[in-house]
């Protein structure tokens, strides 16, 4: 049921063509579309808060140093409609997040795909904020 809902949502979004969702704030006011970032690490907290969810994680650098990152996602109700739930990323889950860095240089990012160890991909993005069209947002037009 959950899967079918997610698939239905993705299909519906694809059918919609180039009409992205509208979000609380503008992507480019906060994040830099020219600075993509890939974060690998463990989930330390998932904040199901409006107007945007925040996923917190610890990322171990090449020097062994652990750095905390905060990753912005869509609104809780938007994530639920895409198939996310409280069990999607339990604490300690190893994930890979692809997103874009904050303009102020802090360890914050706008999240796009979250990939789990088994290869499952979840779309975290806050669609329609104006994030660069990279083909990963299911609300983007398909070529």
């Amino acid at each position: 049921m959950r899967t079918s809902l997610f698939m239905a949502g993705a299909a519906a979004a694809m059918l919609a063509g180039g009409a992205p969702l509208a979000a609380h704030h503008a992507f480019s006011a906060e994040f830099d579309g020219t600075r993509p970032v890939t974060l690998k690490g463990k989930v330390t907290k998932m904040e199901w808060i409006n107007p945007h969810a925040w996923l917190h994680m610890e990322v171990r650098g090449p020097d062994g140093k652990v750095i905390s990152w905060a990753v912005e996602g869509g609104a809780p109700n938007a994530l639920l409609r895409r198939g996310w739930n409280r069990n999607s990323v339990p604490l300690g889950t190893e994930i890979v997040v692809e997103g874009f860095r904050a303009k102020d240089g802090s360890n914050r990012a706008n999240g796009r795909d979250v990939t789990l160890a088994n290869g499952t991909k979840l779309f975290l993005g806050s669609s329609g904020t104006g994030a660069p069209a990279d083909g990963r947002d299911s609300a983007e037009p398909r070529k």
Partner: protein
Amino acid sequence: MRNRGLTSLAIIATVTVVALAAVAVRVMTTGASTAEPAAAAWTASRTADGQPDLQGIWTNYDSTPFEIFDAGDKPGLYSGDPDGTARGTGPASFPNDVTGRKLVPRKSLVVDPPNGRVPIMPWAEERRNYALAHIADSWEYQTTWERCITRGVPGGLFPTGYGSGYQILQTPGYVMILYEMIHEARIIPLDGRPHVGPALRLWNGDSRGHWEGNTLVVDVTNYNDKGSVATNAASQRVRAIPQSEALHAIERFTRIDENTIDYQVTIEDPKVFTTPWTASMTLNREPDYQMFEYACHEGNQAMPNTLSAGRAKDTARPATRTQ
């Protein structure tokens, strides 16, 4: 990017033509009343005190553009991207709700004037354009939505991409509409009492309702001049247009079948718009939809992050700063 925009326009144009054709067919079919006896048989149920029953959980995901697009529109600016580095935003892309019902996009939410364009005075567009180009400079330039104050009345009912749940409850003498987004409740008296005095100015105005047949008509006055008729990016060119204390909204809620409320709002503000204009949309029944407490301020990380991004930009360009 440009090609994508043109492709999107082409898709929208195609969808619009198909949608209009579908509407035309429906209108023609409805006109021949003997062809659809089932549709004619539906009657609105009543509450215990005799009001037409609007109660339930409703959503309004809708991929219809707010206005008919014009070549002079600046979608990047309206979505808060004056640098043009992002892809801009458009109407919320939900052709179906979660129950699988097809939501047919129309030409525009604006139905009057017939050209689908809101008659905005130039000064209001200029003030808005300046504000949206400076959203990283101060909270004052951000909309009341981004500041977690309100999406406004009627703006709180304009479609957006998420958090578009509404609960309507009716008691003798009152209708209450709970808005999921920003968590607001409108309590609308139906007893014919006059509006509050002119000294009282309110973010969401003062609502007074009455029934005209099966239609709930709500008259809204006494606005302050701090908000906007529309706040979210899906409202495109109407987003963040300032409202004056002269704003007057007349809303009409009509339940047209079990699953649909037709919502129309006529807006007049002689200091902002050259003529009154009307938008039309539907509220779609979605009984399984769950609304969350919004708690907007607590989670509004976008505000400090946007302002800190602006300060980082200032630091990166010291030549532009005064000594």
